[in-house]
């Protein structure tokens, strides 16, 4: 590469292209949420989940009746849930610009984002396996596998809460003026981190608000978590737009 004089491919053009890619990554989070509503909601009918109080036979019948929808849905989910990793990096890119010296919080976030999508993918893979031969499978076994999906989904809250706390930490330590993200975003992330903690209670109950189909453990946490992805996507897109404008100026 030859040193540029700023006429054709100056550093600001490079930055503009980087920002364009980062924006695409931010959009992938929005795609994840939309795919969730379409697949889990319409194709599978698992919003809300089947009650943990159902008998094994009743549950097996659900999987037999909906197996085509579940197969198509889990195929789409395997693609779109992988976007967790791409989406998270659009935020980490912004976090990197908040840190001086050793980018500790950035490294921690990259490691975290790289691990967290495993939980996302395990859900559609397990569903696809149940819908593969639900007629010949022992209903008791289907019940265990179905519980497993929801436990994977809800009990895996800690790495996601840690990511929220890491985002807040980076914003609090941001040295830029004005800060890369507005400061309310830090408090919003802390709030979400606190809100998803009751998820741990699904271990203990099969009915009521804290069961895995309950008002708190399912509805509230679902709305908070996927609402958080939407809010963070829009905030990140805004931030990236400002970065591009600053670079152009």
């Amino acid at each position, binding site marked *: 590469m030859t040193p540029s004089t700023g006429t054709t491919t100056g550093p600001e053009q490079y930055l503009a292209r980087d920002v364009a890619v980062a924006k695409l990554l931010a959009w992938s989070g929005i795609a994840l949420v939309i795919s969730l509503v379409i697949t889990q909601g319409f194709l599978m009918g698992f919003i809300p989940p089947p009650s943990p109080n159902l008998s094994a036979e009743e549950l097996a019948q659900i999987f037999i009746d909906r197996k085509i929808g579940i197969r198509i849905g889990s195929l789409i989910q395997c693609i779109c849930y992988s976007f967790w990793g791409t989406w998270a990096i659009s935020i980490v890119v912004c976090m990197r610009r908040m840190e001086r010296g050793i980018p500790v919080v950035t490294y921690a976030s990259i490691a975290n984002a790289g691990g967290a999508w495993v939980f996302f993918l395990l859900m559609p893979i397990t569903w696809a396996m149940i819908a593969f031969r639900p007629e010949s499978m022992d209903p008791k076994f289907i019940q265990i596998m179905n519980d497993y999906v929801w436990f994977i989904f809800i009990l895996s809250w800690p790495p996601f809460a840690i990511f929220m706390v890491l985002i807040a930490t980076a914003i609090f330590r941001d040295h830029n003026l004005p800060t890369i993200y507005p*400061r309310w975003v*830090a*408090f*919003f992330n802390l709030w979400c981190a*606190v*809100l998803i903690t009751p998820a741990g209670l699904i271990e203990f109950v099969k009915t009521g*608000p804290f069961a895995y189909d309950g008002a*708190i453990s399912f509805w509230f946490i679902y709305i908070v978590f996927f609402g958080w992805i939407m809010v963070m996507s829009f905030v990140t897109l805004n931030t990236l737009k400002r970065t591009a404008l600053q670079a152009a100026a």
Partner: protein
Amino acid sequence: MSDSSEDTALARGSKGHIPGEAGIWLLIAGDLLMFSVLFVIFLVYRAGDLTVFQAGHARLNQTWGLVNTILMLSSSWLVATAIQAARRQMRRVVVACFGLALLCGLGFIVVKVFEYNEKIRADLTLTTNDFFMLYFSYTGIHLIHVVIGMGVLTTLMLYSRSGNFAPAKLRNLESGASFWHLVDLLWIVLFALLYLVGAK
């Protein structure tokens, strides 16, 4: 915590001063929102099965609840005193008050451990009935808040050791203190809801 530019411009003590920075109130309002949902759920369940809730309520130990209420109120008062002292640059008082508030928080947890133990020994657990399911989960969620709040208080105490309470530093202290007041407020409502509603 950052020292952003507007900090110096923030005239404290003026009319209509909002403690802490605006963002902390987003967190507090959001948390109150969640607890409002929890309280509504409690009242709906209670209306649905009044006898179980009255029987469950009768088995709670109001003394433990009252001791914890006193601990929470004292800690809140200590935190408020610490903020007042910080405004007067009384470094030692600030550190001492935060330390004592921390002890109150610790006392709260100890009382809760005894109380849970007493219930579990009497075979009253999360799965006994709807009343105890809500009792254990609500107080458990609150207990997580107490633990997080104690982390905040510890941070505030260490942060205050160097003194020099400039406006930016005072605002950070106020933000942390506001969170602890939230923890206190939530307990007051929980105490009323679980231990007092329907008391005869």
